[in-house]
């Protein structure tokens, strides 16, 4: 299935891109994605404990199962305001 991945801040800089369509196995959960994309974007797996996850622009639990066509954002610690 295809999932659109959004990267931000240090991860966007390291990846050199902020937007990537990943081909993921059916049944993938949000918290599996950093490990699955580690080869493509080194550093994601090590950063995984600090990520929050948003699916289709809503924060969701880390074990949320993804569906084809979802947009998954890997959110590093927030610093707005």
């Amino acid at each position: 299935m295809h999932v659109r991945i959004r990267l931000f801040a240090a991860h966007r800089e390291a990846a050199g891109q902020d937007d990537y369509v990943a081909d993921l196995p059916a049944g993938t959960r949000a918290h599996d994605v950093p490990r699955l994309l580690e080869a493509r974007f080194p550093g994601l797996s090590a950063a995984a404990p600090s990520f929050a996850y948003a699916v289709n622009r809503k924060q969701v639990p880390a074990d949320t199962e993804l569906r084809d066509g979802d947009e998954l954002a890997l959110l590093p610690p927030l610093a707005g305001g």
Partner: protein
Amino acid sequence: MRLLALTRDPLDEPGLAAAVARPSSGAVVTFVGRVRDHAPGHAVEYLEYEAYPEMVDAVFGEIADETRERFAIDEVGIHHRCGRLAVGEASVVIAVAAAHRGPAFEACRYVIEQIKLRAPIWKKEVGPQGAVWVDTRP
């Protein structure tokens, strides 16, 4: 003027305060977050704010709706800036108008706390020691 906005342009604090006030508003409380010249342990030359814009719009809408439900206010506005900001520039302006001052103060404080908890926005501090993405976790 839109009451909720994420923008690369300089923020208009008096404009937002005027936009929330109604003839029934006896109090307007405004919070402005500014770029400080220092962070713990080092000087700051400028900040780079980055956002997930589509989700910021959704989160600001949720926060504004919650604020109108929880507090006896007339209106609330939230403007947040992204891009490069110099020391002294405003990164966020929140304006709340209410008949009475208690709810105006409480709602304004609620909004900034919720933004810090929930808005998908990040900032890189750039100073003489280099650049670092801010992580405020304890």
